[in-house]
């Protein structure tokens, strides 16, 4: 997987491109299948990123107020 696809934005951008190419329908069946598989992987990557969201709050100058940490 490419570097930019590890970020949510990168993954969603790649996904958008993949869908467009797929919908364009100019690829061979084999290429389309490959793209489709890659797209599905990206979808689950995005979904897991969205679902495993734990809030990570940090403070640049030391301790967070107790109600936030």
């Amino acid at each position, binding site marked *: 997987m490419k570097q930019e696809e590890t970020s949510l934005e990168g993954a969603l951008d790649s996904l958008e491109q993949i869908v467009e190419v*797929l919908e364009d329908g100019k690829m061979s069946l084999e290429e389309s299948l490959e793209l489709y598989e890659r797209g599905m992987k990206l979808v689950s990557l995005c979904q897991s990123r969205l679902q495993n969201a734990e809030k990570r709050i940090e403070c640049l100058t030391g301790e967070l107020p107790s109600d936030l940490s």
Partner: protein
Amino acid sequence: MTQIFTVTELNSRISDRLEGDLRLHDLWARGEVSNYIHHRSGHRYFTLKDREAQISCVLFRSNGGALDFEMNDGKNVLVYGDVTVYRPQGRVQLVARGIKQDEGLGFRHLQLEALKEKLAAEGLFAPERKRPLPRYPERIGIVTSPQGAALRDVLRTLGNYPARIILSPAQVQGEEAEKSIAAALLALRGRSDLIIVCRGGGSTEDLWCFNSEMVARAIFASDAPVISAVGHETDVTVADHVADARAATPTAAAKMAVPDLEEVQEALKYTKVRMMRALWTTLERAEDRLGHLQHVLSARRMYSLARDSRQRLDYLSQRLEGAEAGRLKSHKSRLELLAGRLGAVGPQETLQRGYAIARSGKGLIIKAEDVRPGEDIELILYQGRLRCRVLECRNDEEAML
């Protein structure tokens, strides 16, 4: 002699002293309105100030009719009234009996306008300079007070969105606020994809630090797009003008900063459907193509079959022609042969020797009884024929030569 007062006694004494001074009655004071509050009770409270000092003012409801203009912060006014002491708080205040609008803008207001003009001329407010906000920020910097309600509003609204949230604490009120905000912005350099600078509602005074040139330049210099959310809907500061986006409130800023999680999930589901549909279409197209190829292929086969057959036909017909010709030839030679043999057994040579062939209408005449007297017969000679009539039919041996 030292006298010990109770606080009540002290405030009474001050009050008596001030309120007894005729010079502090029926006076006019000039200044700029700030912290203006039109209380539910109908009384109006505000601070009258100039560059150096300020004094609390109140216009009681009973005197409210004396206003012939819209009061608001920043307005320059002339206040007519009396100085009194609000004893419970020991506060000196100006009780207004009438307020007039002072023509001309307040000094601070003028300063602010000058700053805005300067920054605008430098292009700090230019719309084309504003950077687009990232759609899915991974790191969100927040510049605000760690104790403020604004921070809590922002965090609550960001909810479960999967991003690192980096708080860069700042004082958002008071003397040191502008330096503090500028420093907090600088501290986020290289650490965030998006920055929210925010502060909850407050008086014009409280929000003033967001009108500072230092803060404006720090926002402008930020390497990440900045959303500014200062005070309430109606408060628009210089920071709001410079920021890449302005939100009316900290909550609105957080909403602006991240996409709606459910929407993203929905979009992902839809993307899945789109991909499946597209793949399906590709499959169908491939199938169609296959069908077409099959068709073309079989047509081609038919064609080549037909061509083969034609060749075979040509070949056969050639052979046939050859065979026919051969057969004809052999017929001809056989015919000649037969003609030769026929010639050998024919009557011509016999006729040459003086014999004749006799025949009647019924055929050859072999015996006398084949004809009757008076019947016409034909005699075929070697050369020519004779027509004859029978005179007599004798069936005896003498007739034979």
